[in-house]
């Protein structure tokens, strides 16, 4: 029996009980689950660690189109490439960021900045695939994206909340991502029209009682069929249906109007702000991964006006999100990532724009597992090249995984095929940004 607890926002959240944990172990270990049922998890450090790991969350703020590092995390004031904005001090001495982010500047103690990404692919499609999956595409093998990787690593098999939600309402650069070889169990709940998921509401023609009891009947028929057939796909079919009613109960997680007005006011009235409220509500209820995409940063023209607007919004909303998570004791367990498919050129083009640039750009990691108030890597004076600490997508991914307590060298244990490492052998995380090493 799963025990539930009431959260401050009034949601019923199932605790990670023993059965739930074993279910989660089953998701990873498949056929071995039966053998584990006799173990007492409290006596097994490995399993206890596993349990802890499963309380971690990620909110990915995807800056679609590619945000400028100059107008965010790596300003170059006074240089020919620097643009009109100044750099300001933060509350961590020695770290200066763009003046467009005054609120984040006062929360630097939670954030680690990477200023030395060289990801080599400055094409929207290629860059997106690379940054979404953490590795270059390889013909013949369809890699899962970050959300699916983490749904697989952090999610629970019998989770009552969705374990990967992706909010991407604007059309520019929209990309669904997905589970690749991990299979559709780990596909995102993809919300591209509305913040409310499809098919999550009961049709009026079926009463609440009938909806539940017809499902009990379905379950009885399914169980009878499965009894003598030892097959993982058959098991997954019934599991998928068993998650339906829990997910339907999570409908109100997607309903921003359930949030107190005072909190909504803090985030502000924008769509991005509302989506971040939904992300927080989901995380609070146990969802391991939420992606909120904000478009469209692709400022080939009028770069500075675009960034004036978008960075100000990011600064405000992300700062509010940090405070909100902190107040709820969730920041220690939640990693906020900002990144896009690439950064923007040092050169300012005749339309006062900056173009695609993947050779020296920035991303940020805030919260869970991160040594706050730190900066890793350095670009040269004008931001043309990485001067120190060059890293690519694989190293960035290894860092994310390690921050969440996941061994980046382990292998996907998806059944039946050869093991595949989470990151390519030899990839090193950026330990300088990690608090847990």
């Amino acid at each position, binding site marked *: 029996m799963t025990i539930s607890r009431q959260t401050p926002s009034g949601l019923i959240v199932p605790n990670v009980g023993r059965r739930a944990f074993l279910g989660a172990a089953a998701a990873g270990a498949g056929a071995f689950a039966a053998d584990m049922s006799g173990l007492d998890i409290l006596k097994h450090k490995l399993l206890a660690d596993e349990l802890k790991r499963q309380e971690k969350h990620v909110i990915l703020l995807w800056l679609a189109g590619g945000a400028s590092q100059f107008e965010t995390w790596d300003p170059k004031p006074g240089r020919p490439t620097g643009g009109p904005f100044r750099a300001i001090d933060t509350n961590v001495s020695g770290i200066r960021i763009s003046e467009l982010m005054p609120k984040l500047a006062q929360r630097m103690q939670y954030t680690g900045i990477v200023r030395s990404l060289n990801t080599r692919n400055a094409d929207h499609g290629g860059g997106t695939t690379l940054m979404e999956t953490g590795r*270059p595409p390889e013909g013949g093998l369809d890699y899962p994206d970050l959300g699916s990787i983490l749904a697989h690593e952090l999610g629970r098999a019998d989770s009552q909340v969705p374990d990967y939600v992706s909010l991407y309402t604007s059309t520019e650069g929209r990309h669904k991502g997905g589970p690749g070889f991990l299979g559709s169990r780990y596909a995102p709940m993809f919300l591209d029209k509305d913040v409310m998921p499809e*098919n999550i509401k009961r049709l009026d023609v079926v009463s609440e009682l*009938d909806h539940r009891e017809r499902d009990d009947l379905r379950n009885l028929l399914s169980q009878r069929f499965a009894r003598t057939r030892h097959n993982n796909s058959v098991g997954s079919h019934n599991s998928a249906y068993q998650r339906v009613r829990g997910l339907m109960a999570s409908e109100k997680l997607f309903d921003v109007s359930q949030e107190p007005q005072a909190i909504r006011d803090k985030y502000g009235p924008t769509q991005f702000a509302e989506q971040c409220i939904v992300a927080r509500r989901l995380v609070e209820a146990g969802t391991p991964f939420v992606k909120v995409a904000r478009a469209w940063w692709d400022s080939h023209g009028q770069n500075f006006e675009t960034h004036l607007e978008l960075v100000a919004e990011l600064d405000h909303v992300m700062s509010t999100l940090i405070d909100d998570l902190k107040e709820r004791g969730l920041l220690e367990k939640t990693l906020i990532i900002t990144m896009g498919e690439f950064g923007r050129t040092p050169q300012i083009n005749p339309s006062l724009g900056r173009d695609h640039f993947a050779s020296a750009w920035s991303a940020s990691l805030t919260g869970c597992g991160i040594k706050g108030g730190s900066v890793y890597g350095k670009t040269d004076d004008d931001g043309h090249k990485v001067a120190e600490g060059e890293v690519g997508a694989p190293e960035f991914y290894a860092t994310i995984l390690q921050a969440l307590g996941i061994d980046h060298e382990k292998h996907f244990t998806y059944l039946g095929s050869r093991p595949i490492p989470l990151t390519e052998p030899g990839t090193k995380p950026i330990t300088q940004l990690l608090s847990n090493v």
Partner: protein
Amino acid sequence: MQVRNPHRSRLASFVLLAGMISLGGLSADSFAGELLPPEKTIEEVVDHYIQARLTTDKVVPAPQSTDANLIRRLTLDLAGRIPTVTEAQAYAAATEPDKRARAVERLLASPDFAYQQRNELDTMLMSKTNDGAWREYLLKACQENRPWDQLFREMMLTSDADEGKKAALMFLKSRARDLDELTNDTCKIFFGVSINCAKCHDHPLVLDWHQDHYFGFYSFFQRTYMNKRNQLSERTEGLVKFKTTEGVEKPAKFMFLTGSVIEEPPAPTLTEDEKKAIEKARKEDEDKKEGPPPPVPAFSPRTRLVELALKAEESRFFSRSIVNRVWARLMGRGLVMPLDQMHSENPASHPELLDWLTRDMVAHGYDLKRLMRGIVLSQAYSRSSTWNGPETQPHDQVFAVGLTRTLSPRQYSLALLFASRNSKSLPEDVLSPDWANRRKDLENHSQHLANQLEVPSDNFQVGVSEALFFANNQHVQNDLLNEGGDRLAGVLKTIPDRNEQLKLAFWTVYTRDPEAEEVAAISQYLDARADRLNVAWQQVIWSMLTSSELRFNH
């Protein structure tokens, strides 16, 4: 053009290479002396080799499935749908000793077979597109039972000028902008090998060999491109160079997986100006919005690849792969698993059987129907899918139990449409024109549902979006649970007797009688809703349609 991908250098594989070397050196005839004679029937040979392994492994297989279960399995595999009540009950009641063979011939002759065959080939070749002309082309090919080698030739070499067949080029066209994908998919789908197997098995001694193979295969496609008129074209020149793991630049040869190399005839010596003029003319033609497709060059690497790959002494990759894929589709797993890892370090579960079937496939002109007929007539195919023994279930690879298989999106959609119909409203004779029309309508109708479903992969897991769709989508309520007279929900209303109702519902959806515990549970459900029996029956039908029993071939 220069291809440089340091990442790919690690794709080199001792394992894959070892496979290539040994497979490349052997023709099917090498085994001829040891194999059962070619004139035996496929079903005899299948059962001989499967039984041999069971005997060696001391495994007692599951018994044969029931008639009703077998006709469901056969109908899903050969017709892509579940049987109607009439079909199933007629089969169960028939007493002729050769009734199974007759049923198989009837299904193979029905219009349903071509739809099913088309849908399966479409999924295998193009899992992510939904192109009308391509699907029509494949359907026609399946109606004619065109040989597999001919289909391969058509997919690789048809001219855009051939209006009737140019849709065959979809395989290439959809991948022409990414030659790595084209190379990989062609290797995987047609030849049963994937360069990715290499990744975990670095072997420094053969690293360059492997790169030679990869870039060799890539070379056959490297001159292929699409012009502005969406016509497939091929340049007259262009060589692939690659960097070895030692960082040395090396030109690739036109090299097939077996190591065989095609030499390009020396090109006429041209001045720089002449070369420029040729390229200029080509470029102009490439950019034209209208006009005929450009001519095939005198030396066409793509043509040479097809010729080479189908030559008797080189065709083992091609022929073994299709045998393994057809086997996997009908039996639930390949004789070699995974399907794209057909190399010598990964032997077949039944090597002689694979060799015999491959020899038979080549000897009978790549007739897919022949192989399918043979497999489904075997005892191995018709074993029960349940395992009740006290011992743990034997490993899937010995084929001691009928393996439970996830239905494809099309199969499941059609199964749902047939299961929600009033069986009596369907024509009885599947060879009649009425049936052909009805089947065509339902085939088109199945598209909407099929689009909601994921294509199953190995170790498929059903996603929750599928369950949410069936739980709450309007389409399910309005279409599958519709109470019209041609629907199951409609006809049940007209039957006064509860047991008759249950019997009809179970035969329609599951092709069997209900069991006592099911009768009890459903009766209890209905009795609790005596004031709204019609709605209650709709809900019972919903439960039956969404239960795992309909979702799988078993």
